[in-house]
């Protein structure tokens, strides 16, 4: 998979708190591991809540993140003069060949790093904000900053069209990666297979994850499938969620809480049908890719992000987003037909191959290769601080932006 014929010194920037759960952080961690395996040197700059609990040795903490409610969840971001100074220090001390900034349009470390540095930079846009007004109200400020990026990566066609419409900038689509091999040998759990089971994973308290929609559909499905059981995994208060549904159905519903990675795979393998009833706000849907990798039969709403992952119904079925009747009908039909479910489960693994890290990683390395060509004098460009090229900082006593070079520490 090697396309780059030299080893790079790469800086990754995470916008969100490293110790908080989240798809972006997982993506960056996996990418860092992959790059290290390929022989590159990697340093990740990220906000960190508890520095003592930090286990990944390639992470450089940039300070404690500030929780801000955003897009139906809480984003832990970091901004301000102290953070800016940490970014400058990090860039000065590391002689980066390339900076890979995640979420450069969100006011956090990514935007800071992008505005302070110059040279080979690539940015990945994860978010597909339907509530765009909040996210892109700052476009006039953000535009000249993210324009410095030599390449933009969008994690899905949805994220790409968000960029196209709101910032008028095109991006290369490279999906999020999953470790396909680790999903291959999951085995089902008997207690999750009793009766006809349908599964749901997610922070169910959030409206956009669609659990209440699924609950609306449940009575109709139960009519046709009296042995139906609903397994729900994910963090949240189960009592609150149970208020959305008729008490006579409570016995069919099991809340499993947060699942470990291993349990999640067993979960996908055990349920007859995995349902993703999300109503919006998704840019990728890594959970669907994981369900596919394990080999689950999937019924998902027809959000653009999900249609991208399931390749328009090729690796699973869709129902109309927000329409519980359609959900109930499609789910009942599928549960009627175990043979189809089996076929769907058997082939969905194949659909996840394009999300496998080696495939995704090669595409990312290709982009790295494109933005770091050899210049005419035969040398490669380095990432440097914008401030360093200002005339008044070239004097020997040089201002605030001087930091000791430090090669020993990552």
């Amino acid at each position: 998979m090697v396309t780059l014929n030299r080893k790079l010194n790469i800086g990754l920037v995470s916008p969100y708190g490293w110790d908080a759960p989240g798809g972006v952080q997982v993506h960056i961690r996996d990418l860092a591991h992959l790059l290290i395996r390929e022989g590159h040197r990697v340093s990740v700059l990220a906000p960190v809540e508890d520095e003592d609990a930090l286990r990944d040795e390639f992470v450089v903490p940039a300070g404690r993140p500030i929780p801000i409610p955003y897009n139906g969840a809480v984003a832990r971001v970091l901004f301000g003069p102290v953070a800016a100074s940490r970014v400058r220090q990090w860039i000065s001390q590391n002689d980066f060949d390339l900076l890979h900034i995640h979420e450069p349009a969100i006011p956090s470390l990514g935007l800071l790093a992008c505005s302070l540095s110059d040279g080979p930079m690539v940015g990945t846009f994860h978010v597909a904000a339907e509530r765009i007004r909040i996210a892109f109200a700052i476009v006039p400020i953000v535009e000249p900053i993210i324009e410095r990026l030599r390449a933009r990566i969008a994690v899905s066609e949805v994220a790409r069209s968000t960029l196209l419409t709101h910032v008028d900038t095109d991006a290369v689509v490279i999906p999020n990666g999953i470790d396909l091999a680790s999903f291959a040998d999951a085995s089902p759990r008997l207690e999750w297979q009793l009766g006809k089971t349908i599964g749901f994973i997610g922070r169910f308290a959030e409206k956009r994850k669609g659990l209440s929609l699924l609950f609306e559909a449940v009575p109709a499905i139960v009519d046709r499938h009296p042995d139906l059981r609903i397994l729900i995994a994910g963090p949240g208060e189960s009592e609150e969620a149970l208020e959305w549904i008729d008490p006579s159905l409570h016995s069919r519903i099991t809340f499993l809480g947060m699942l470990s990675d291993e349990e999640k795979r067993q979960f996908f393998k055990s349920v007859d049908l995995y349902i993703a009833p999300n109503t919006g706000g998704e840019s990728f849907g890594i959970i669907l890719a994981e369900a596919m990798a394990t080999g689950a039969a999937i019924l998902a709403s027809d959000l653009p992000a999900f249609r991208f992952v399931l390749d328009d119904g090729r690796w699973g079925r869709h129902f109309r987003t927000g329409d519980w009747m359609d959900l109930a009908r499609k789910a009942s039909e599928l549960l009627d037909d175990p043979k189809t479910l089996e076929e769907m489960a058997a082939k969905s693994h194949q659909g996840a191959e394009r999300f496998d890290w080696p495939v995704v990683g090669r595409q990312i390395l290709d982009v790295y290769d494109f933005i770091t060509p050899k210049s005419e004098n035969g040398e490669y460009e380095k990432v440097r601080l914008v401030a360093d090229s200002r005339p008044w900082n070239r004097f020997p006593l040089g201002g605030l932006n001087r930091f000791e070079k430090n090669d020993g520490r990552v």
Partner: protein
Amino acid sequence: MMESYILFPLLALLFLFIWYLTFTASRLDRLHHRVETSWAALDALLQQRAALALEVSHLPGVDPAVAMVLTQSAFLAGEAEIAERSEAEDGLAATVELLYETEDFHQKNPALSERITNVSKRIEVAMRLHREAVHTTGVQRSRPLVRLFRLAGRAPLPVVHPFEISGERTL
């Protein structure tokens, strides 16, 4: 004393304006650099494709007509001036596609065919990056302020070559 009330704000405004001009100029400079970089990457890939096409044309058992077309467009793509080159690249892309359609090329030469597919995919990505850089630069250069103060200097206006547009596909 009165003058300073007018003078200071005026001076401040002037400085702000000059700062904005230099800011825009350096922004443009950066954009031009981005176009150069993306073109360099695309150019390198196109040369690779031309080299591969030549390799294919030397293979035994390739239809002589196809081989000739390949040699010619590969030669042009590798050598020609940019105006002719666009046509040559178009031709090369078409011939390579033809090769895949008409012959059992893939079965006979899996390794070479793999390399060509690989390069073609990467060319599409590189084209998108280059088109994007050119587009952004063009938008910025068309601003009245930029034209009035000639902030782009003598840098030539970057263009997207015709073959990049015909070569566009959804990735």
